[in-house]
C-alpha cells in the first residue's frame, strides 16, 4: 500500500517519469503479486476437489472393485487405491498425481480422464468464447446507448432485456431456438454436435474448428462448423447478455454524472471524445469485473447448452459420466473447470492494469 501510494504520488508529480523505466517496475510487481494471490485459491480448490472425491456415497473401494467383488478383493482394491492410508497421506498422494497430470481413469471411456478432458476442452472453449464475444458485442453498445439516452426506447429495451435475460433458463431458450429455427423455419442445422457428418473434421491444430478450418483454407468446412456453432452460441450469449448490459448501463450513468465529464464538456470537447475517450474508459472497469462473474455463469450454463445441442465438449462429457456414475471423470471435470476459472479471473485482473494504470500501483 505505502510503496504503491508513493509511486502514484511520484507519478502525479512528475508525469514525464512515464517515459523512464520506473513505472514498469511496480506494475510488474503488482502482476507478480496478483499471480501469487491465486496460489492459495488453487490450493483451496484442490483441497475441495479432494474432499469431493473422498465423499463418494458408500465405500469407494467397493465401488471400484465392481459388483461381484468379495471381501478380499475389496480390501485389495482399497490397498491399491491407497484408501487404507490416513486422509492426510491420501491428500498428498492425490496432489502428487495431479502434479503429474493424472486425474484417474474414466470407467466409461477407459481412457485417462485428463486425456479425455484435453481432447474435449477446445469444443467447450470455442463455444463459450464465441458466445461471450457475441454477448459483449451486443450488450456493451446497448448499455451505452441506454445510459446516454435515459427514458428512450433503447433504455426500455435494455431494461426488458436485462430482466428477461436473467430469468431465461438456458436449456429452455436452447430448446425454443431449436424448435423455431430447425423445426419450423428449417434454416438451422440439426442440433447434433460441432460438424455435420458430411464434412470431415479439420486437421487438429488448435482444436477450434473455425480456426483450424480457416488455417487449412477449407471454407466449406468452416461455414459448416460456423452454422453448427450459431445456435448454441446465441443461446449462451442470451444468458450472459443481461449482467453485462446492466453493468455497462449503470457504470456509464455513474461516469457520465461525474465531475470530470462536466469539465470535459465545459472545455468544449466533442461529444464522441467525451463519451468514448473519457466516460467509457472509466466505465469499463466495473464491466470487466462483472465479466468474472459472467464467466462463472457461462461455464455452468455451458454444461446445459452442450447437453441440449449434443455439443461434444467437457460439459456433455461430465453429464454422460454422471449418468453412469463415473466419478473420476466428474471430479476431474469439476477440478478442470475450477482451475480454468481461476486462470480466467487472473487474466481479467491483469487486464485491469492494461485498462486502468492506477490499478497496477495499489497492492490490493
Amino acid at each position, binding site marked *: 500500500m505505502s510503496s504503491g501510494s508513493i509511486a502514484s504520488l511520484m507519478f502525479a508529480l512528475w508525469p514525464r517519469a512515464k517515459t523512464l523505466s520506473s513505472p514498469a517496475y511496480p506494475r510488474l510487481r503488482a502482476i507478480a503479486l496478483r499471480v501469487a494471490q491465486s496460489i*492459495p*485459491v488453487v490450493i*483451496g*480448490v484442490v*483441497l*475441495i*476437489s479432494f474432499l*469431493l*472425491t473422498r*465423499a*463418494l*456415497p458408500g465405500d469407494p473401494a467397493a465401488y471400484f472393485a465392481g459388483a461381484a467383488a468379495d471381501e478380499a478383493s475389496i480390501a485389495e482394491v482399497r490397498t491399491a487405491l491407497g484408501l487404507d492410508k490416513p486422509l492426510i497421506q491420501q491428500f498428498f498422494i492425490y496432489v502428487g498425481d495431479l502434479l503429474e497430470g493424472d486425474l484417474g481413469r474414466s470407467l466409461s471411456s477407459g481412457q485417462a480422464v485428463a486425456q479425455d478432458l484435453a481432447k474435449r476442452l477446445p469444443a467447450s472453449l470455442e463455444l463459450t468464447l464465441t458466445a461471450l464475444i457475441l454477448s459483449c458485442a451486443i450488450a456493451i453498445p446497448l448499455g451505452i446507448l441506454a445510459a446516454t439516452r435515459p427514458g428512450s426506447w433503447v433504455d426500455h429495451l435494455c431494461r426488458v432485456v436485462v*430482466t*428477461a435475460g*436473467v*430469468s*431465461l*433458463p*438456458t*436449456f*429452455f431458450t436452447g*430448446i*425454443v431456438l*431449436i*424448435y423455431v429455427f*430447425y*423445426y419450423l423455419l428449417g434454416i438451422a442445422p*440439426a*442440433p447434433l454436435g460441432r460438424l455435420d457428418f458430411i464434412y470431415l473434421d479439420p486437421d487438429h491444430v488448435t482444436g477450434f474448428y473455425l480456426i483450424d478450418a480457416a488455417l487449412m483454407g477449407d471454407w466449406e468446412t468452416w461455414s459448416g462448423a460456423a452454422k453448427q456453432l450459431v445456435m448454441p452460441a446465441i443461446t449462451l450469449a442470451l444468458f450472459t447478455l443481461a449482467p453485462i448490459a*446492466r453493468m455497462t*448501463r*449503470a457504470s456509464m450513468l455513474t461516469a457520465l454524472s461525474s465531475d470530470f465529464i462536466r469539465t470535459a464538456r465545459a472545455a468544449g470537447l466533442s461529444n464522441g471524445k467525451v463519451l468514448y475517450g473519457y466516460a467509457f474508459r472509466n466505465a469499463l472497469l466495473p464491466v470487466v469485473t462483472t465479466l468474472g462473474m459472467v*464467466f*462463472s*455463469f457461462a*461455464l*455452468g*450454463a455451458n*454444461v*446445459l447448452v452442450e*447437453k*441440449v445441442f449434443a455439443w461434444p465438449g467437457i460439459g456433455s462429457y*461430465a*453429464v454422460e459420466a*454422471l*449418468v453412469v456414475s463415473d*466419478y473420476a471423470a*466428474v*471430479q476431474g*471435470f*469439476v477440478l478442470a*473447470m*475450477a482451475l480454468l*476459472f*481461476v486462470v480466467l*479471473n487472473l487474466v481479467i485482473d491483469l487486464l485491469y492494469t492494461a485498462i486502468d494504470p492506477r490499478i497496477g500501483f495499489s497492492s490490493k
Partner: protein
Amino acid sequence: MTDMPLKQSRKTSGGVDHLIYVLRANPVTLIAFGMFALIVLSAIFGPALVPYDPLETNASNALQAPSWDHWFGTDNVGRDVFSRVIVATRLDLSMSLAAVALSFVVGSVLGSIAGYWGGWLDIVLNRILDTIMAFPLFVLAMGIVAALGNTIENIIYATAVINVPFYARLVRAEVNIRREAGFAQAAKLSGNSDIRVLAMHIFPNALPPMMVQVSLNLGWAILNAAGLSFIGLGVRPPTAEWGIMVAEGANFIVSGEWWMAVFPGLWLMIAVFTFNLLGDGLRDIVDPRKRT
C-alpha cells in the same frame, strides 16, 4: 414468506405510506406481488385442484396437442402436461425455499461471527468463501451432488452451499460497520452479553438487504435446481418437476411436439421472472438509491 413486504415496510422510515407510494409509482412491482401470490397458491392448492392425476399414464392418449381437455397437451405416455406443470410448482418452490433458507441461516451465523469478532475467524471464513467462489458455481453444485449421492436433499444442500458466500459476505459487511456503533456500545454497557447484542441489536439491521438478496436468490435457486435435474441429477422420473419435464420434452422437440418442453420451461421462466421483479421491487422499497 407472504408477510415479507409488510415486515419490510415497518423497517423503512415512512412505513406503509412509502410502500404504497413505491407500489403506485412502480406498478410492475405490484404485478410481481400478484404473480408471487399466484405461484404460492398453486404450490399449496395445486395438487388438489388439477384436473388429472399427474402420474396417471394413458397410452391411447399420448402426444396430444393442447386442447380443451388437455390445456397443455399430453406427453409421450399420455400424462396431462398441465396437471404435471402445476403439481411440480410445490416441489420446485420447496427445493429452492429450503436451499435459500439453509444458506440464509448458515450465512447469517458465519457472517455475524466473522463480522463481530473479526480476527482469525474472519480470515479463515474469507478464505473458505473465496475458495467456494473460485468454482463456477453450477459446476460445484454438480460435483457436490455427484459426490454426496443423487437425491433431492443433496440438490438442496448443493444449492445452499453455493449460495452461502453471498449471504455471509452481506451479513459480515453489515455487522462489521455497526460493531462499534453507539447503540451497540450502549447495549453492551447496559449489561447485555456479546451474543445478545449481536443477535438482538446488530443483526436485525442486516435484515432489509438480506430480504432483497433472498428474493433475487430464490429465482436463481429455482434455475439452479431445475438445471441440475435437467441433466439428470436429483429428481427421478416419473416425478413431476420442471427441469426434468423440459429434459423429457427435449427429445420430442425435433419432431415438432413442442408442448411437452415449452410449458414447463415457460412456467419455470415465469417463476424466476417473478422473483427477480420482486427482488428489484423490494430493493426500491428498502434502498431507493441502489436502483439501476
